[in-house]
């Protein structure tokens, strides 16, 4: 693509700005946008070996079949969404080739591949108050006993649907959200974090 082509994150205006900015050192939460991550919505039957073999051949991943779990590979990560649906998440720019190779590898099968890189965006939230802030709008039990390594879940944060993924025990949690809701979610987070302090980083 030529130099003049410009991508924009849905958080174009807010990437590094919190209205009630705190420094990361004393912030209750730190929010780090992860724009442009490749994201592919994949549909298919995981009990069909031809389907899983083809996906493994392209992504190097055995698709997770346990609900709300994640499988990590070198290039791609797969998140379970429903019994026959996954997000494949990879490095920015990886989506175009991957869609093409998946289409070729799966040709003749019953499947669906949709590039949703532009349709989704990702925020990483870390810091001591991460769970407290999310608990203001999320009814999911995010206690480490209930939600730990390898897990993800689709749920609501206030009025926005999200996919939450466990990252580490900082704690760090990752939110994937549809692009049109991203600005709303950001504003919501800033307000929810008011009592703890929110920092935004790149």
């Amino acid at each position, binding site marked *: *693509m*030529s130099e*003049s*082509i*410009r*991508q*924009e*994150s*849905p958080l*174009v*205006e807010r990437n590094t700005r919190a209205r009630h900015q705190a420094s990361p050192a004393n912030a209750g939460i730190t929010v780090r946008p992860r724009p*442009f991550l490749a994201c592919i*919505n994949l*549909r298919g039957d995981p009990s069909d070996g031809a389907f899983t073999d083809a996906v493994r051949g392209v992504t190097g991943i055995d698709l997770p079949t346990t609900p709300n779990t994640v499988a990590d590979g070198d290039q791609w990560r797969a998140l379970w969404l429903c019994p*026959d*649906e996954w997000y494949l998440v990879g490095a920015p720019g990886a989506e*175009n080739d991957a869609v093409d190779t998946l289409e070729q590898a799966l040709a003749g099968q*019953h*499947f*669906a591949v*949709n*590039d*949703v*890189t*532009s*349709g*989704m965006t990702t925020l990483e939230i870390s810091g001591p108050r991460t769970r*407290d802030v999310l*608990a*203001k*709008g*999320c*009814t999911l*039990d995010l*206690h480490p*006993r*209930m939600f730990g390594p390898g897990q993800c879940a689709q749920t609501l944060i*206030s*009025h*926005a649907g999200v996919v939450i993924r466990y990252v580490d025990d900082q704690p760090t949690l990752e939110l994937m959200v*549809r*692009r*049109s*809701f991203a*600005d*709303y979610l950001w*504003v*919501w987070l800033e*307000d*929810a974090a*008011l*009592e703890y302090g929110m920092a935004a980083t790149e």
Partner: protein
Amino acid sequence: MSQPHRLQTGGRIDRDRPLRFTFNGRTLQGYAGDTLASALLANGEHLVGRSFKLHRPRGIMGAGAECPNSIVQVGSGNATLPNLRATQTELYDGMEVRSVNCWPSVKFDLSAVNQLFAPLMPAGFYYKTFMWPKSFWHNIYEPRIRKAAGFGKAPDGPDPDRYDKHNAHCDLLVVGAGPAGLAAALEAGRRGARVILCDEQNELGGSLLASRAFLDGEPAMSWVDRVVGELAAMDEVTLLPRTTAFGHYHHGFVSLLERVTDHLGPTSPDERPRQRQWRVRARQVVLATGAIERPLVFSNNDRPGIMPASAVSTYINRYSVTPGTRAVVFTNNDSAYQTALDLADHGVEVAALIDVRPEIEGVLADRVRKEEIDVLPGMAVVDTTGGQRVSGVRVMRLNTRGDSVYGEGRTIECDLVATSGGWNPVIHLHSHPGGGMCYDHDIASFVPDQPVANTLNAGACSGNFSLDGCITEGFSAGATAAAASGFGSDDIEGEAPATARVREAPMRPLWRVPTRRTVTRSPKQFVDVQNDQTSADIFLAAREGYASIEHIKRYTAMGFGTDQGKLGNINGAGIAAEALGEDIAAIGTTTFRPAYTPVTIGALAGRDFGPERFHAVRKTAMHVWHEQQGALFENVGDWKRPWYYPQAGETMRQSLDREVRATRQSLGVLDASTLGKIDVRGPDAAEFLNRVYTNGWKKLEVGRCRYGIMLGEDGMVMDDGVSARLAEDHYHMTTTTGGAARVLAWLEEWLQTEWPELRVYLTSTTDQWAAISLAGPNSRKVVEQICEGIDFSGEAFPFMTWRAGKAAGIPARVFRISFSGELGFEINVPANYGQHVWDAVWEAGQPYGITPYGTETMHILRAEKGFIIAGQDTDGSVNPMDLGMHGLLSKYKDYLGRRSLSRSDAVREDREQFVGLVTVDDPAEIIPEGAQLTDDPNANQAPKPVPLAGYVTSSYYSATLGHSIALAMVKRGRERMDEIVHAPQADGRVIKCRITSPVFYDPKGERQNV
């Protein structure tokens, strides 16, 4: 600023931290650790307000949630808080407090004259008197009653305080941090369970905060401090003081209200919210909510200075305040003997201890007699004297049946009466989700009976009033609940502290002291003091035929107040039993419902208010550009869509005329990204579309687009849109903006529940694609300039087809479709590149005066063409024949809703049909949308109801045509072309309209086909 009723030592107040506050303008002083009520009593202020109906003087009565009287207004301006209970309001420095329900002042209240008319205002008075004539209610009676009654004043402006919500999960929620609750939390916490322990008071300890009992040979609060210290050190235990569990729902869901910064006052710089609503999902719930002492009911029992005995003890022991100087104790059980001792030990003269029981034995009685307190067995207080404060009691002998008083009366002077009629377990939270209760004769009250799933009652709320019993039950409940959550066994591991067990003599139930004359002719015996509801009212209700306690409650307004009858309801049930000649066990109690204590609306709303957070706000990839162009926005579903783009000095009409003309004459551009988009793929995709759309999809060629409508199974139009065939097994479906989520859910429901054999995958791609819609004669020139790999000639790229290529270097799908009737192209690109491509379109369009237009112009353009908007021109009662869409109804297949189209109602000949309207007298007049249509030109004068001919669904000024246009549903409309109908207006005018075809412009569709 002396506090004449404050003791020199003791209590849980901090004498090193004096706090100033004002009460009705006077400055007073209290201490940190005081409630407003204890601070007022320390200053000798009993009188705080007036009663609701009769405006009788009312004083602080209880010491907690049960107090019916101590309603005050705190603070000023928009942060003012009406109807706070002084007994549950922590004092802070600078607190401003005013009495409510009195005018001009609490001591001189003009409405107190109501008392003179009291005999005229019995139960049911409001219902009977003010119902006739009906028109008087809204205009005369209600406003006057509101002015005279009415408690505090709500502020006029927005609430400046912040509120929040917190969703929490735990293995065990313990409600109440008294002896039972602390023991339960300790037992479960030690096993590693996730425990939340909440209590409505500012400190944990419950009844022990005001107790002189000993545990393990030390004052009970030493044990409390040790337990709280241990709990606080546990990682998985959350302690929530100042937190009221106000609602207990199904499946372990409990709502708590945490008063986070209320005790710091409005000037606190704290960033935390004022209150936080906790929405707790608990695997197990232990209710340790304690018990509330009920007063005895006797004539003139509402005077300030008459209090439950336990409240008197609380003020003495916890707040170091003596609520009087010469007390009378009046009881039917042993617990008030402790209050007599508390009074005597702190220098308050106890003039008499009056006990309705004829014989009094036991340890407590011996100790009271040792203090040389005059104990009067078999006696009862029959009346009191006093004005703004009780000044004495009248005492007579009670017969053994308890139904009459006799003998020579005796008057005892006093300024404090401490009464105890027994204790009521706080079973509210057990009752909320449907837990049953039964009458317990030993305590003469109701206790939990039918259990609630995963919920245990421990301590006084289960009817166990002994301290050692409460602690043991607490440990046991903690063990059982922890075990049920997978932490250890049912066996108690913790060790209960040693406590001396006091054997108590049985109580003598007494619901009201008998009177010499009939109930109705005797001085008032108040049952619900907040609502001025008396035993005479209950007798009246029974006489008038009310037999159910629920009906008696509603007729008398018993328990209707902000206190929900916490002191009076059980006495009321007992008196109703007497009036009806039945057993109280059969009468039962009224149903307890949330909220346990009042909750401010702000805490229920949390942060979900205002334009940013009341609902989700969805924005397109070009939103910032629209803002920079000065667009005004319209909410469509959750989306913000540009409505129109006013230029400097333009009216809305001028903007719309300009946008419409530019599009028809040259080039307009619309952000169409919000339309719902669904990727439909699989071998059965065509069959699937055939079932959900009314028209056929199998023969649509790859590369072509088709308009379709979806019906509900009732045959009514649900949604519409254009879908394109991407490949043999692959379609791109579009829906309306507002219908996207509903349509996807509808399609998934059919696929998953009814047609699982169809091999089709649906994927929402709404957010993936930015859609840039170009319309107008010059639109082809722009797409030709910015796109690569597409032949835009009319032959190569005809109307209702799509092509793949690149737009401004970005892979794009370009659809040749039109919602304006003009030549049009819709460019779809991945949304991350939406602004980039929009910028390219904008630049390429400059030679043609490219004009951005919003939803309003889009509506005008499509209305000129007679295109419907599902949800505006349809309302769920419109079928496709009504719209004249017969051509879209396939005869060769079944589809959802088809069978309903032949129901007798669907084929009725007088159905409303979709037509156009133009105005006759003033061609520019715009008929209001929603206007009703009649055939009667004098409809405004005609007798009502006027027969209606139809209604207007859409209405605009068309700059293209130079006159207004409207779309409407009119009965038999298609048969009535050129006929006149009338739209009567609220201002008396009648707009004369002529029925036309709904297609006003380019009826042959030539412009879009060029």
